[in-house]
């Protein structure tokens, strides 16, 4: 096989045409892992033997009767807060170093049923919060575009592994940007689906009412292929939506002429002014959308600070409740950063929490009204290129507000895609959000953008050394 790292869509076509063997594909991923992960720390646990056995089984089945779907034989990884039967699931924490679940999380089960090949478990911030931490059992993941830089988190290993081609796709989770943030800084695609679309059963909570599970991959099309396998009602998740599941790739390639995209300029130009490189990426992206025939409109929402305050109060409180028992009895066993977040729970009263949830309803209604007549809205994903990994502020929560939390608060789907390269050759990104359950439209817009721009042809330099 070629040394080029295929996308899921490309690999699926080649596998179906019997031009690519799942075993060769898996071996190529494992070779890259052995060559690069000593520096990247994207994996906390490799399942090499299982991966090769699954790849051989996939190959036999495909040779006998063709692939059962487009994920059959595709090497993937799971964030290490996703329960995996018989495989360690540590949540990046000292608390769970010996934890071996006896069942798979719903998302692990669904990806396995689709025929994917599980290569291993991926680095996460402790219980999907805080980070980067250097006082956990495993080191933090590093950015493949420059390993002195941060990946963002908390799906840090998934971002690094996909960008470096160690896997073709992976699972992330997103409470305030933990899929889209690493996707942006690692130069890949990642979608936080509509709240309730993908079951959270068997995934460690960060903040119950803000938690989402979703795919991360090199392209939006690959994310669509993964979401096809992941979406669907699950009675084990009390927030699981009961909706018909559309074909997420049906609108790809149909162009975006006439689609209406709202631009929330004040988020990234006033409320939290982004870096020059990020602004250049956004400005160029808007020109691309105009060239593709989309109509751009100005959108005005409450200041980003309002969304951040609402989301932070909810997130702090729900996390403190989820981990209260260990906080009371073994606080010192958490990493410094996770401990600091948990301590904040003492400051938020019950009334503060309810006021935040009342504000949530108002903000969601505001977004709903603003999106009437629009197909998507656009803003930044991250304020700047990746910081140095040892220069990430511990209390970033109180610094300038992030761009991703508004869509966790609202539960609306949002995707991050690479929009070029800024300072130091590091990736920059745009974020597109859609109406609830309108993921097909989001994929249509994101895919059109990726195909109209050259950024998907460039991988991190470290991947070409082997």
């Amino acid at each position, binding site marked *: 096989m070629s040394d080029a790292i295929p996308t899921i869509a490309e690999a699926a076509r080649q596998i179906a045409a019997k031009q690519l063997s799942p075993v060769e594909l898996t071996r190529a991923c494992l070779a890259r892992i052995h060559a690069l992960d000593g520096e990247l720390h994207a994996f906390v646990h490799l399942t090499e033997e299982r991966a090769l056995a699954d790849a051989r089984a996939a190959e036999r089945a495909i040779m006998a009767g063709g692939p059962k779907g487009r994920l059959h034989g595709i090497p993937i990884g799971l964030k290490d807060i996703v329960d995996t039967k018989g495989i360690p699931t540590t949540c990046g924490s000292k608390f769970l170093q010996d934890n071996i679940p006896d069942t798979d999380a719903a998302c692990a089960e669904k990806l396995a049923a689709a025929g994917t090949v599980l290569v291993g478990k991926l680095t996460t911030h402790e219980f999907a919060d805080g980070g980067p931490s250097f006082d956990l059992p495993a080191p933090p993941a590093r950015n493949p575009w420059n390993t002195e830089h941060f990946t963002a988190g908390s799906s840090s290993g998934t971002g690094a592994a996909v960008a470096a081609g160690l896997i073709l796709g992976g699972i992330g989770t997103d409470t305030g940007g933990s899929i889209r943030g690493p996707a942006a800084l690692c130069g890949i695609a990642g979608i936080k689906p509509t709240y309730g679309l993908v079951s959270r059963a068997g995934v460690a909570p960060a903040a119950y009412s803000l938690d989402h599970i979703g795919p991360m991959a090199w392209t939006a099309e690959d994310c669509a292929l993964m979401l096809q396998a992941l979406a669907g009602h699950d009675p084990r998740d*009390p*927030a699981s939506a009961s909706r018909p599941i559309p074909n997420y790739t049906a609108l790809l390639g149909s162009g975006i002429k006439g689609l209406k995209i709202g631009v929330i300029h004040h988020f990234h130009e006033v409320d939290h002014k982004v870096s020059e490189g990020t602004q250049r990426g956004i400005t160029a992206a808007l020109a691309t959308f105009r060239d593709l025939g989309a109509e751009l409109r100005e959108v005005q929402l409450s200041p980003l600070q309002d969304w951040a305050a*609402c989301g*932070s*109060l909810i997130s*702090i409180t729900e996390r403190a409740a989820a981990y209260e028992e260990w906080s009371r009895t073994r606080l010192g066993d958490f990493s410094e950063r996770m401990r*600091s977040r948990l301590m904040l729970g*003492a400051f938020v009263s019950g009334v503060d929490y309810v006021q935040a949830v*009342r504000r949530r309803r108002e903000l969601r209604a505001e977004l709903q009204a603003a999106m009437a007549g629009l197909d998507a809205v656009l803003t930044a994903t991250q304020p700047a290129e990746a910081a140095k990994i040892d220069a990430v502020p511990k209390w970033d929560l*109180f610094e300038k507000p992030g761009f991703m939390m508004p869509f966790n608060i609202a539960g609306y789907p949002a995707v991050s895609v690479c929009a070029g390269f800024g300072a130091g050759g590091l990736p920059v990104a745009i974020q597109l959000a859609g109406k609830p359950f309108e993921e097909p439209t989001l994929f249509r817009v994101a895919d059109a953008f990726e195909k109209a721009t050259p950024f998907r042809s460039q991988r991190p330099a470290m991947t070409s050394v082997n």
Partner: protein
Amino acid sequence: MPSEINDAALDYLLARAGLNLTAEQKAELKTVHAGLAAMAERVRKPRGRMAEPALGYGFNEGDLA
């Protein structure tokens, strides 16, 4: 929530939360209290008593069967 917090109030809140902190941790936590107080103030709006919170979950078909 007032933006400043004194030691007695901090000790009360930590005791209520069941958290045992070192003097150093308490001192650090005091430095971010104002930030959290500002967030709590920001979500308070003149909305009246009838304004309800967002509901966590909706009813699914299965709940109605």
